[in-house]
């Protein structure tokens, strides 16, 4: 049972390593799909939004995590 639980936890962690990142990617794909449906004369707009959105999500996610980490580290250092 422990192994099965660990396997399920591993599978979940593979796709949901960070809940905000996962939510942002899913929302972006939904937005690209919506654009694709409404602007089917210009399908590349949906593609451009998808690509640029992924790059933006990556940058935002890294910078948010870094800012949180360094703030906590600075607070710890000042407390010592």
């Amino acid at each position, binding site marked *: 049972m422990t192994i099965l639980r660990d396997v399920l936890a591993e599978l979940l962690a593979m796709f949901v390593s960070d809940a905000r990142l996962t939510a942002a990617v899913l929302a972006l794909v939904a937005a690209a799909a919506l654009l694709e449906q409404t602007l089917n004369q210009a399908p590349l707009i949906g593609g451009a939004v*998808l690509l640029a959105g992924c790059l933006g999500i*990556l940058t935002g996610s890294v910078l948010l995590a870094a800012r949180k980490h360094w703030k906590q580290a600075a607070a710890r250092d000042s407390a010592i």
Partner: protein
Amino acid sequence: MDAWLTVGPAVSAAFLASVVEVVEAFTIVLAVATLRGWRPAVGGTAAALAVLGATVFALGPLLGRVPIHLLQLVIGVLLLLFGIGWLRKAALRAGGVIPLHDETAIFARETAELAEDTRRHATSQDWIAGIAAFKAVLLEGLEVVFIVIAVGAGRGLLWQAGLGALAACALVLAIGAALHRPLSRVPENTLKFGVGVMLSAIGVFWTGEGLGIEWPGADLSLPVFAALFLATALVSAGLARRMERGATA
């Protein structure tokens, strides 16, 4: 050229991702072998490989029945989640936000934990050691199985991606068997960077195709996507490191 552009990213992503995962699994299998001998280590590893192989053989034919656009969309989104997740972690490691993976420290910790476990359960030491090897190979192998299926299924490249993963297993095991110590000098974060870039690029490509987008240049757009993801991740890692100076100044 076109065939290379299709097969190359799939095989190299499967190969590089497998190197990362097999190195991690090998560290634990080696800890088991060092403590209890090769019998439980090889037994646990073989059992896990059999489960993983059965998973690929069971899922592979089923995927052939799913409509191609739906398959590309679902696998594309999963690849995006997985690839950007890896790339984020690699960028944070490169930026000094989270520590690098240390196989030597993991080996020492696993050996100590296993020694404690087997000391407490003196009658079933080999069994516990075998289960530890089984779990390590199964959990690390799950990611390899996903990547092989994900990069292979959308284009009928399951065998090629599988061979890439097997080549990585053979390479790591051969080097590990020769050195007989954890492979701590493998540039794991660099590999994770590379794999994250490729999986994210393939993820964008397939999600787009699944949505009905026809990318300009078709497969030729893949290297462009990969270059953009690489540049973005490198810039993000640099900015993350610069934030440290800002916070400590």
